[in-house]
């Protein structure tokens, strides 16, 4: 399979980015250094190319019914112009994908899905569309997307648009905003734990948006690669599909029950209700490594007696906090903060303690 490139690929190469294969896409992992880019987003602003993300449009008289049928969260509780996070679930409770649903109106929704899962998601939707009176279109190839994230994001974007960006509240969006000669959909969303916007335009126009933001931001903005995208979302307690949940691991086991509606009526709802009633097999906890070493995804977790009780789903030496922290999926009744566990780091069992997973609040 040949790798795909976003419309911004040439800019990444020109900027000296280290480009890697990310689920079939040639994407920038870093431009200068992961730590510097991470810090830029926390303190000023970073600009991410996220054009690889998928956009699937659901339109028609039964759009609300169809999205409700395949999506774990309750879309009837949000207004036009609002965005809601949730999952496509398998009937057994595993996750097809996690996604954002943008509600244009009752007859029109935009589903923003993971790049690696776009084809799978599209097929999943087509498989379940049945007699619903809707059209389902994978418009991903024609859409470019950038994310400007950080405390200075609004200050940098504001001069480029006519509207007052204060009007876009978190998890809301506006469409057809004139921006550098094109029309953009702008949402106040992101994957970093900072304020910021995600900007969608036709693929051929996203380069102009990138250039304008870089120029407007000057010293205040840095291009930011997928390397720091992962450390930023991890510190902000946001999950990554494939790590915190996957085709086998339900959202309830990833601490994401808030996004799984108890109202039911969607694929996977019965499995979720059953798991809630009978008990959740695994829980996601936060760990701080107390000995020397860094916990990484896939490392085993042990209790005091040496029994293997779980696995690290994501772990880093946190660039913001300067300590080694990790998410771990464990089968443990006692998950009280401060409890000592052990992480298998190569051939050693390194002590760690359970901490609150809202890592940035411990800053």
């Amino acid at each position, binding site marked *: 399979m040949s790798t795909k490139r976003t419309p911004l690929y040439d800019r990444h190469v020109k900027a000296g980015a*280290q480009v890697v294969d990310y689920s079939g896409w040639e994407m920038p992992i870093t431009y200068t*250094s992961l730590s510097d880019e991470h810090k830029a987003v926390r303190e000023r602003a970073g600009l991410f190319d996220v054009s690889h993300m998928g956009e699937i449009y659901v339109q028609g008289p039964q759009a609300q019914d169809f999205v409700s049928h395949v999506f774990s969260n309750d879309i009837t509780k949000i207004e036009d112009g609002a965005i809601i996070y949730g999952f496509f679930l398998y009937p057994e409770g595993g996750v097809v994908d996690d996604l954002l649903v943008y509600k244009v109106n009752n007859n029109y929704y935009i589903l923003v899905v993971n790049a690696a899962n776009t084809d799978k998601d599209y097929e999943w939707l087509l498989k379940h569309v049945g007699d619903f009176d809707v059209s389902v279109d994978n418009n991903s190839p024609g859409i470019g997307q950038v994310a400007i994230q950080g405390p200075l994001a609004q200050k940098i974007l504001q001069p480029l648009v006519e509207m007052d960006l204060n009007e876009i509240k978190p998890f809301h969006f506006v469409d057809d905003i004139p921006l550098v000669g094109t029309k953009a959909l702008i949402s106040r969303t992101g994957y970093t734990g900072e304020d910021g916007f995600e900007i969608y335009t036709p693929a051929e126009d996203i380069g102009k948006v990138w250039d304008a933001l870089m120029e407007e931001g000057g010293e205040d903005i840095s291009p930011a690669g997928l390397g720091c995208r992962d450390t930023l979302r991890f510190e902000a307690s946001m999950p990554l599909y494939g790590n915190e949940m996957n085709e086998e691991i339900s959202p309830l086991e990833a601490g994401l029950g808030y996004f799984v509606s108890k109202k039911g009526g969607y694929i996977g709802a019965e499995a979720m209700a059953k798991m809630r009633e009978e008990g959740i097999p695994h829980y996601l906890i936060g760990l701080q490594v107390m000995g020397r070493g860094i916990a990484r995804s896939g490392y085993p977790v042990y209790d005091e007696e040496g029994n293997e009780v779980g696995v690290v789903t994501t772990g880093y*030496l946190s660039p913001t906090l300067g300590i080694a922290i990790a998410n771990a999926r464990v089968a443990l009744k006692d998950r009280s903060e401060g409890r000592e566990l052990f992480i298998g780091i190569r051939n050693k069992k390194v002590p760690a303690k359970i901490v609150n997973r809202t890592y940035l609040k411990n800053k």
Partner: protein
Amino acid sequence: MSKIYFTKDHEWVKVEDGKGYIGLTDYAQDQLGDIVYIELPDVGSELEAGDTLGVVESVKSASDIFSPISGEVLAVNEELEDAPELINADAMENWIAQLSIKDEAELENLMDEGEYNDFIGEE
């Protein structure tokens, strides 16, 4: 007069007074990015060429350091435990471990500086 040899895994060994000083190449540190952690071998441990000598970790990942030669670990550069970023600052000057040289013939299997530069040019 010291002589320096290189591996395909981007380690170097500098031979001085019959001992081998082992480090990572500048190319390796550049590929790794910000180095935030290093695990050094135990002094006194016996290594064969190709054994894992230690581990170096950047923010994004952990990578093994392989011993270019066989020998006993005579000393480690403990300064790196508190300041692993020294490898980013100057990879060629900051040795990681000092080994006895069990078999000088092993050095002949390694690359000299010119061969190594050609090698990374092709990567």
